[in-house]
């Protein structure tokens, strides 16, 4: 096998903090390398160094026998290193073709060669299996489609190494399959991939080599065939998988929260998701109710209606047997609800603000001496949650944007737990966070329910909902198709409900 590039004892520091040290490996033609490790382990940093957006502080990169201190972005491009970032870098107001050719427009005699670009775009869209016209504005394409466009852009010209940073986090299973087919096809043509994912199944399905990072160091590099999930997890965190996704319900209380026949304002789709139709559910104190379903089944929309963020067409919401009217999030909070939103960067945190400011936001009005805000109390509040939730930080003054994904999620949790909710809604609480933080969140769910809190858990990761919920409601195209208890859980059954192949008619 031919080596394309090699990393030689790379280290990188930001200020006094060493993020990675002594990383060496080489990338050979036509192979898929999976980088795994907890958040903050240094995976993205190493990718940014390879793609030229960061310069290492020590070590070197080797390309065609020559040693480089660093690659410039231009050099990396020339070598054929393309990166698809976790946060998509795509211009929503431009069309598909313009995005794909941005910065590398084809030209003839100094003029843009529209015809060449058009036919190449069609070819690429065909390859990634996205059925849109090259002139569609990207803002009219859903997230999964944009991801595919990014990939098309990456492989457009002279791709040798394609870096995919968490490419599957916004894709449905179907689209993931498509993506994998593309990767496998390109691999045969000699393109190499660096693949970052928190989902180990995918890592094993796709990769040839697995490189495990822990705390900024490379702890192992193995052939995927010679290892298994358990071993990889042990290397990443020093724990076994079954240790951290366990559920035993300890508190059995009355039905505390109930919704009856709740529907959205109208039927049909809203931004690629179905609006809920006649959804009923009951939730007991101390219970974890999982809501499963495919992306777009209307799970998040249901929560939005409950929380007053989307208008309710019809139906009743009852708390502790009393009907309540919830017009906005303020009402919802007043009735003891808390909602950990799916998108923590947009809806969960004020990123430039400090941990304290973020945690204190919903309870600010309670922490006052008459008119004036009691900053001392706020500091104590944030200290309390930093300790309780083991948030890794330099202190309450640290900006939220400087925390890793897992710690950011803990800040969001702290913020909502400080309102003392009776009903906690978790929407994809472990998306994009590492195994260690996941384990802590599962543990927290168990602790909270032990004290009587009622939890609704939405997750696209089936093992997660199956592992941590007591009962499961499954939705399909806005309707509830089934509700099963823990003893009945099986992936096959849940998928049947989730794809509408099996529908129960009872009310739940």
């Amino acid at each position, binding site marked *: 096998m031919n080596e394309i590039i090699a990393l030689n004892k790379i280290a990188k520091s930001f200020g006094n903090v060493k993020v990675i040290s002594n990383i060496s490996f080489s990338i050979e033609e036509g192979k898929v390398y999976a980088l795994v490790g907890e958040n903050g382990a240094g995976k993205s940093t190493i990718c940014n160094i390879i793609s030229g957006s960061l310069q290492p502080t020590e070590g070197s990169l080797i390309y065609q026998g020559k040693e480089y201190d660093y690659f410039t972005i231009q050099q990396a491009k020339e070598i054929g290193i393309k990166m698809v970032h976790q946060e998509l870098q795509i211009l929503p107001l431009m069309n598909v073709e313009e995005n794909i050719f941005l910065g590398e427009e084809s030209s003839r005699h100094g003029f843009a060669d529209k015809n060449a670009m058009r036919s190449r775009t069609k070819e690429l869209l065909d390859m990634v299996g996205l059925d849109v016209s090259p002139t569609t504005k990207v803002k009219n394409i859903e997230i999964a489609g944009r991801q595919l466009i990014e990939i098309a852009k990456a492989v457009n010209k002279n791709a040798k190494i394609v870096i995919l940073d968490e490419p599957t986090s916004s894709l449905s299973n179907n689209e993931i399959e498509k993506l994998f087919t593309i990767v496998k096809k390109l691999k045969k043509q000699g393109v190499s991939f660096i693949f970052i994912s928190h989902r180990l199944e995918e890592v094993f399905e796709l990769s040839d080599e697995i490189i495990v990072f822990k705390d900024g160091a490379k702890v192992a590099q193995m052939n995927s065939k010679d290892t298994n999930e358990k071993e990889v997890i042990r290397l990443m965190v020093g724990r076994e998988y079954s240790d951290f996704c366990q559920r035993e319900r300890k508190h059995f209380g009355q039905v505390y929260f109930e919704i009856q026949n709740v529907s959205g304002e109208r039927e049909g789709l809203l931004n690629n998701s179905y609006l809920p139709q006649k959804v009923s559910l009951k939730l007991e104190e101390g219970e974890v109710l999982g809501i499963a379903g495919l992306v777009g089944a209307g799970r998040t929309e249901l929560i939005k209606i409950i*929380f007053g*963020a989307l208008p309710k067409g019809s139906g009743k919401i009852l708390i502790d047997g009393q009907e309540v009217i919830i017009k*906005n*999030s*303020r009402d*919802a*909070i*007043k009735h003891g609800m808390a*909602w950990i*939103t799916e998108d923590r960067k*947009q*809806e*969960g*945190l*004020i*990123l*430039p*603000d400090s941990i304290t*400011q973020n945690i204190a*936001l*919903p309870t*600010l*009005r309670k922490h*006052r001496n008459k*008119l*004036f*805000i009691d900053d001392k109390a706020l500091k104590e509040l944030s200290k309390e949650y930093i300790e309780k939730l083991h948030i890794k930080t330099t202190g309450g003054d640290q900006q939220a944007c400087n925390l890793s994904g897992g710690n950011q999620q803990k800040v969001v949790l702290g*913020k909502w737990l400080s309102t003392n909710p009776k009903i906690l809604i978790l929407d994809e609480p472990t998306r994009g966070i590492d195994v260690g933080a996941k384990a802590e969140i599962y543990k927290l769910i168990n602790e909270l329910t032990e004290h009587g809190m009622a939890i609704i858990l939405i997750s696209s990761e089936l093992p997660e909902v199956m592992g941590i919920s007591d009962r499961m409601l499954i939705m399909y195209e806005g309707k509830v198709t089934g509700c099963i208890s823990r003893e009945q859980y099986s992936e096959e059954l849940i998928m049947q409900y989730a794809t509408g192949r099996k529908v129960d008619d009872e009310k739940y």
Partner: protein
Amino acid sequence: MKNIEFLKKHNSISRHLGLIGVILALSIVFTILDSSFLTGMNLLNIVRQSSVMIIVAMGVTFVMISGELDLSIGGVACLTGMAVSKMMTSGIPISLSIVLGLLIGVVIGFVNGFLTTKFKLPSMIVTLATMNLANGCASLITGGTAIYNLPEKFEFIGRGYIGFLPAQVVFMTIIVIICGIVLAKTLIGRYALAIGGSDKVTELAGITVVRYKLLYFIFCGLCASFAGIILTSKLASGQPNLASNMMMDTLTAVVLGGTAMSGGSGTIAGSVMGALLLTIISNGLTINGVNSFWQMIISAFILIVTIIARREKDK
């Protein structure tokens, strides 16, 4: 080392070090060039000259921190000045005229906030429209001519003294202190910062964002109206082209003071210093006999340097 600790604790001082530095440096240069710059008289003069700008800057600071813009301030000041003049010369008592004048600012502020939040329009466009609306109305009152013969007592606001201090300096000081406390220590201030940081997150945290934004716009309108009254009193006449530079000057002062145009951060002290800096530049250059065309060019350079200095520090 102790000094650094001190600065860390007193964040508001270290944040503005760049700005303080520029103000000090300029003062030294102007004093060397002409010793009359650094006299008690002239310093008080500078504070007086900047009072109106500071008052308006207070309103603008709140609006800008919450992530919006208000371009209508100059128009509001002008309309208020004309309306108050017209009312007083038509025999309406001074105090009632002033209250009604301030009400103009409240109403336009409300309209700005209402259109911005209710219809989710960009506040820049909304307030651009209300700016023209206010300027148009101001000229309509007299068909474009000035109003003279205002009551003598009215001149107190812009020309009178309280003790040895000009009345407008006293008004300004009171407003600044209140705004400083409100921004740093109350819900109204903290919510402005949070809303500017992310209105989505703030809304989900149970805060009625619309209501607070409305409040900031109304306060900004009120400040602009009050400024219009002071300026009119100072000129002892209602001028239909009053406050024509107010919008650009005030926005510049607030941005110089470190308030983010996109919202989420900013301080009262910064805005006050931004306004002082602008006044010092024009005052110092005037004292040194620089003609007004060169003044514009020189102040443009100083502004660019200050902004760059700020940016470097923020990194």
